């Protein structure tokens, strides 16, 4: 099969997504739409265009190049760059993704997100950093988006990577059918499993999907021997209280076995620009990033219950 899938980015020298130095392969497309998502460009399964606000000088070249009238006329760059500006360059509804505007832009202010890549292309790039994996216990992390939503392609990619003796991590939300997840976890060395919230209603509100399949899959997963690092998000007004995390501990203790490690991932807002680039609203605008130091107390809660915990999920701890 010579198929390709859309990759939003292949990020080398990633140090917080599994052990050691890793290369993250971000598959584009995810069934969840978390309000705080740090990689909003990985949500859609199709290609998109970034409009990099600060690089744009509003020269109007893109407007002239566009055959579909999908570009808004220029305004003063200072106006567009203002924090509260509602100005958008691309009218998404009219855009048919011909990318003529991207070609026309001399300032690199317009950029295509999502490159179709074959398994060979992906692995060629991943393998470039093998020497770093060897010295750090690193390898490839298949991430997204949601890898399990990329079915056969993603499974084949993992097979091919395994045959090249790469250490593999699966970074998953766990939102899929157990039968599918089962096939994925069987192919990797470590599962990075997200736990976003215990309350299904809140979960639905903030991510667009209920949490039952996720919790259910986690239960099944802990019934196996697969290595699991559970990634617990600490999001303001959502999952930041001590009480909540005590509940999480209680829940985790009901599982067939303890997960191998817990990474507490404090919320940050570095991704805000990306929302603007995609012409989307950043829903978390009112929240400041959480200082990792503040999360130390939550770490204690998990540690007291006998869990192995990090803040930030470095691949160089333990």
């Amino acid at each position: 099969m010579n198929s390709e899938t859309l990759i939003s980015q292949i990020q080398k020298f990633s140090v917080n997504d599994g052990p050691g130095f890793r290369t993250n392969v971000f598959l584009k497309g995810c069934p969840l739409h978390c309000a705080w998502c740090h990689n909003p460009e990985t949500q859609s399964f199709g290609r998109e265009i970034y409009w990099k606000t600060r690089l744009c000088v509003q020269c109007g070249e893109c407007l002239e190049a566009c055959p579909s009238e999908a570009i808004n006329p220029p305004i003063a760059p200072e106006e567009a760059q203002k924090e509260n500006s509602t100005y958008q360059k691309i009218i998404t509804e009219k855009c048919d993704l011909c990318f003529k505007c991207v070609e026309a832009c001399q300032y690199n202010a317009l950029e295509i997100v999502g490159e179709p890549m074959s398994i060979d292309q992906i692995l060629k790039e991943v393998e470039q950093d093998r020497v770093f994996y060897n010295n750090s216990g690193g390898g490839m992390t298949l991430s997204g988006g949601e890898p399990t939503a990329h079915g056969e392609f993603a499974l084949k990619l993992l097979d091919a990577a395994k045959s090249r003796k790469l250490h593999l991590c699966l970074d998953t939300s766990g939102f899929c059918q157990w039968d599918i997840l089962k096939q994925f976890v069987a192919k990797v060395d470590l599962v990075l499993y997200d736990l976003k919230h215990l309350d299904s209603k809140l979960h639905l509100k903030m991510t667009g999907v209920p949490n039952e399949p996720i919790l259910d899959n986690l239960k099944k997963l802990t019934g196996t021997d697969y290595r699991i690092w559970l990634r617990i998000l600490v999001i303001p007004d959502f999952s930041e209280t001590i009480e909540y995390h005590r509940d999480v501990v209680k829940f985790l203790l009901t599982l067939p076995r303890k997960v191998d490690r817990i990474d507490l991932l404090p919320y940050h807002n570095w991704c805000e620009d990306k929302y603007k680039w995609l012409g989307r609203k950043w829903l978390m605008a009112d929240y400041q990033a959480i200082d990792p130091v503040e999360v130390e107390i939550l770490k204690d809660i998990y540690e007291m219950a006998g869990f192995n915990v990090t803040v930030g999920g470095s691949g160089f701890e333990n």
Partner: protein
Amino acid sequence: MATTAKEIKEFEEKQEWWWVAEKTRSSRLDYLRKAVWKKGALGGNYAPGIEIDLEFPELYTETWQENEGDPIMLRKAKSIGNVLENLPIFITDQSQIVGCVGSAPHNIVSYWQGASMINEEIYNEQGILPQPEEKSLERLAALNEYWGGNTALDELAKVLDPEDAVKFMSGAIGWGTPSSAVGYATKDFRHIGKGFENIIEEIDENMERTDKLLRGNPSPDLLPLYDKLPRWEAMQEVLDAAIEYAARYARLARIIAENFETDPKRKEELLRIAETCERVPAQPPRTLQESIQYDHFVQVVVRYETYEGAMPHRPDYLHGPFFDKDVNINKSITRDDALDLLGEHLIRTYEIGIFSPRWTREGLQGITGTWVWTMGGVNEDGTDACNDCTTAYMQVARLVRIANPTFSFRWHPKVKDELMREIFECIRHGLGYPSLRNDPILVENAMYWHGHPLREARQWVTQSCMSPCPPTKYGCQPFRMASATANCAKIVEYTLHNGYDNVVNMQMGPKTGNAVDFKTYDEFFEAWTKQMKWLLNILVRTVALGRAKDPEFFSRPILSAYYERAVETGTDAVDYTNGERGNAWVTAFTWVENADSLAAVKKLIYDDKKYTMAELIEALKNNWDGKEEMRLDFVNNAPKWGNDDDYVDDIMVQCLKTTAAHGKEIKCVCGNNIPILPENVSGNIHYANVVSALPNGRRLGDALYDGGISPGPGLDKKGPTAVLKSCGKIDHVLDGRAFLLNQRLSPTQLAGEKGYQLWKSYVKSWDDLGMDHVQFNMVDDSTLRAAQKDPEKYQEVIVRVAGYSAHFVDISRKTQDNIIQRTVQGLG
């Protein structure tokens, strides 16, 4: 007010390491550190208050004039002797190490015998003349007129091929002066360590033996002996003068102690200084203080002979046994006492100030010379040479935060984890040093290129920033400019313009043909090769003649006394016939532009045919004016070095291999081959206005790339692993030597234990890729920008410029901007 542990912790958390240093160092080190003058130029000008020393050249010139009939080395020795015996001396409060280059703490010195153009430059210089200015101008004019036309460089210019001389001195193609008036020499420390009186005795024996021969049977063999005698006499003269110089300090210390000092503790210290100076350098040292004082005298005294712009040295190796004896075995001093001595060693070295011509100041911004001390490494038998003194130097470096000297660490797989942690702390505290050098690779390199035997190669020190040289009897290189420094971006520039230089308006390189007529990339590269060979040849020819003539035109009595092979043979240390093995290299400044420019030409002109060569040349001649779209195309749509992209990486390797092949054809004065050594110091800024627009997208005026093999600032889009991978494609033994790589790392990512583990894995991979050098800047953009805005508050921020570190506020704005432009490698 005492600082609380809590305050220190806060500074640590904010990563304001300079405050941490100030609050945690001893009060002595704090005083000494703050009392020392900044001798490096701030960008191009000296700091307010710095003055040129006029007493030194006047004392020197006086004796020089009186001894016109003497052979040069003896004449020079007497002149230096007069300086060492009569130049004012001083002892800084709280200081334990004495000796300074210059008659006052705020002075910088220069050598009027070196080059008329430097003498005139001093006359023309803003802000460094002692007041009243009129009087200084008269003194300077008198000095300049005496030396004008008669300096070492004037003499050399008369014998050089005129065309070579003009092109060399155009300033377009090379850096440096082909005279040991401006250079640096490896020191034969094993020999020097015998004690000056013992060297004098050795010379006595040599002279007696020679006298006997001269009274014996006539033979042609006798004839060279007559010239040796005055040389030996000259060596003895300077060694005596050095002993007297130390004795003057001893007397001064005693006078202060016995007549003026009221604090009993300080009195004791002054008497110890006196005893130390009575012992060294006449006799070998016995204690750590004597050892460091000895070392410092050796370094200071030689700088009354010439500008030594580097300090090839292995202080941990040299002082380690004394450190161990005093601190760990006899416990005659505490570890803190020892740190005070080592800390002051750094400070006294920083105090050395020598006037540099403008091109040097711009290329070595913020420092006097590249005083890179080599640490760590292995012993002759290959065992780990790191010792407790190595650790102590790393610790005290973080306390005094001196930008010069800096350390270069000879890393090898046996280095203990504890020491690696100390090194990491230095880097994490933003010192920019030690740089890491891959010992096994550089040992192999020294054997491959220069034939140093294994046991000697294992003793290597960096001769300046980068190049290894064994400080052994036949390994020592007395004269850096035995090789040369090439402005390599000119290679591709001349390839495009048929050898014509549009900046200095001169036909410089050979006419390799109109580039428009090159049908293929191979033809283009062939022309590039011819330009490369021409550039290396003209530089090496020029400096080789400078080297050969140096004993006649300049002469080095002190260095000769420092060299066992010169003492043994009664020759000048610079004399290339006294057994020197040869350790020459050509420093390749502005090298990486070649790879990126060739790749852009290959891709956009020959492969894609998007532009014609005529269009490109026209755009370059106009400095890309009005061709911005095209320029951006050349920047963004042609592969760039440092992204693990074989298209351009193969070109880089091809350039290096072609040049290395030529390096095997050309020879230094000793008959040895010459590798290239890509690095830049801050020559990438100096040359910004000398190198024309290039196909990599730069304009005349833009800074060139900063490292020897560092990618262009901001052009390494694929992260730090890709940078290392690209660099790993170079064979670091066969393709050249000592490839300088700058990396900026994010301080946040490297915090804590995990930061150390991460860095360690990075270093292991660097080793696996077979690279010989890497150095780190670990200061984030926001700190640097804040320092630009509010320099007063950030006086102590240190950055890695190239093969050296400098205080950020001491470098020009353009260089500052260039450092900020270097991509911060987020490490994830």
